[in-house]
């Protein structure tokens, strides 16, 4: 079984490398943020930066709307309807808009963006997403001076989402970013992965991905993007403010009461593979550290 899995990954990886090579020629300097992965320079880096298999990415998910077990989202989301789908952009903007998925795919070109996903539970994956910077989407609206934060709201549909029939979290799922975080080029609107349409269990039809924050910050199946003046309370902050802060930047120096944040396990590795050290800002320190200059990240965790 192990061997089949490996041979499945390799061609995909060669394919991806070829794609990003072609892209880097055609897009050139504008694509710095497209494929940037941490863990470079040491002997194990290639192993650590290998794309996680499509199977693991799409069958091992935290998506409580479809159930709390990792295998639930794949099982319970197959009949989830993502058409029609409209996203409302509202709040502190001059021109609130409703934008359909069709319009989004017409207006924005999704490019491949290979990023590491670090879950707060102490595991990580490398995922070849398809998407574009959130800043591009937000450029379609005019922010007012009160637009200090962005709140993301996921869909609420207990008829289709089994997990929402129980008060596991404060539904609908909410997440948020500070406006400068939201406008950072690494903050991605995701529409697909592995060059395929985004699977339901991964947050179809549209989700956010913020590579330097723990996975739960990246809300799935988004229906509303609201610009607000005050820091929004995310669903996980609501559930346990002691454990989950607003920022939730990947930070090996800030302890979590349950999981080690100093190290992580790479998904898909066998039992003999060691844990690897978790990097500050999930390895994107160079790109994002300046957002937090002068902030005590132990306090603003």
């Amino acid at each position, binding site marked *: *079984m*192990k061997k089949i899995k490996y041979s499945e990954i390799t061609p995909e990886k060669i394919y991806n490398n070829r794609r990003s090579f072609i892209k880097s020629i055609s897009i050139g300097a504008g694509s710095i943020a497209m494929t940037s992965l941490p863990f470079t320079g040491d002997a194990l880096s290639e192993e650590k930066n290998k794309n996680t298999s499509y199977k*693991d990415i799409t*069958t*091992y998910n935290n998506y*409580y709307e479809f159930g*709390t077990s*990792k295998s639930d989202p794949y099982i319970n989301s197959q009949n989830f309807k993502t058409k029609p789908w409209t996203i409302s952009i509202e709040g502190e903007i001059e021109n609130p808009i409703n934008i359909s998925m069709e319009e989004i795919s017409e207006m924005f070109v999704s490019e491949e963006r290979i990023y590491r996903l670090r879950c707060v*539970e102490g*595991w990580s994956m490398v995922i070849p997403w398809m998407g574009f910077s959130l800043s591009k989407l937000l450029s379609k609206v005019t922010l007012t001076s009160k637009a200090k934060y962005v709140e993301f709201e996921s869909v609420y549909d207990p008829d289709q989402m089994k997990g929402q029939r129980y008060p*596991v*979290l404060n539904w609908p799922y909410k997440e948020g970013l500070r406006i400068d975080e939201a406008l950072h080029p690494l903050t991605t609107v995701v529409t697909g992965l592995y060059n395929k349409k985004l699977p339901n269990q991964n947050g179809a039809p549209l989700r956010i991905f913020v590579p330097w924050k723990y996975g739960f910050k990246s809300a799935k199946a988004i229906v509303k993007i609201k610009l607000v003046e005050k820091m929004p309370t995310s669903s996980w902050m609501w*559930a346990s403010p002691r454990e989950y802060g607003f920022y939730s930047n990947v930070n090996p120096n800030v*302890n979590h*009461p*349950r999981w*080690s944040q*100093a*190290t992580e*396990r790479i*998904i*898909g590795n*066998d*039992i003999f593979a*060691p*844990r690897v050290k978790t990097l500050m800002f999930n390895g994107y320190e160079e790109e994002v550290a300046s957002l937090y200059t002068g902030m005590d990240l132990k306090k603003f965790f």
Partner: protein
Amino acid sequence: MKRFLKPSVFILSLFPFLIITYKIFFNQLGPEPVKEITHHTGEWTLIFIILTLAMTPFKKITKLNVWISLRRMLGLFVFFYATIHMLTYVVIDYRLDLQSISKDIFTKRFIFVGFAAWLLLTPLALTSSKKAMMLLKDKWKKIHRLIYIIAILGVVHFIWLVKKDLTEPLIYMAIILILLLFRFKFKKV
């Protein structure tokens, strides 16, 4: 019939271990195998705690002594699974990185109670023989009542590690509390 009871229970009790071993060798543990091993062995530790604690009430209810003859073996299986559970964490997951492990023990309360529970199990396993029983006389019973505390610590360990959905650990908690309640009742009668 009675002759085959103990060997059969012994073999049955080994089944979870054999299944986990099979899954390791045939790569059936999914994307996060170490977590799976830890989870399975932890779960079976709690199940064997429940089985061990159930023997005395079963004896009282059915008025059959046969249950008591199984108690020691089941208790040793608690130690067996708890030890594999602990070693998975120490050896496979953290590769004997004692600095990280000791930091975890003192900063993460669920690891602290889990480790404490395992430590408390050790004297029970060491004094499980008939010889120890005779040597320790009255003290033996007192020492072995530690299992009540261990059971609570074990289930608290589970409650504290769960992220959000507490259903499973609370079921274990309920069963363990019922079994402990039996002891109060019968002591008073």
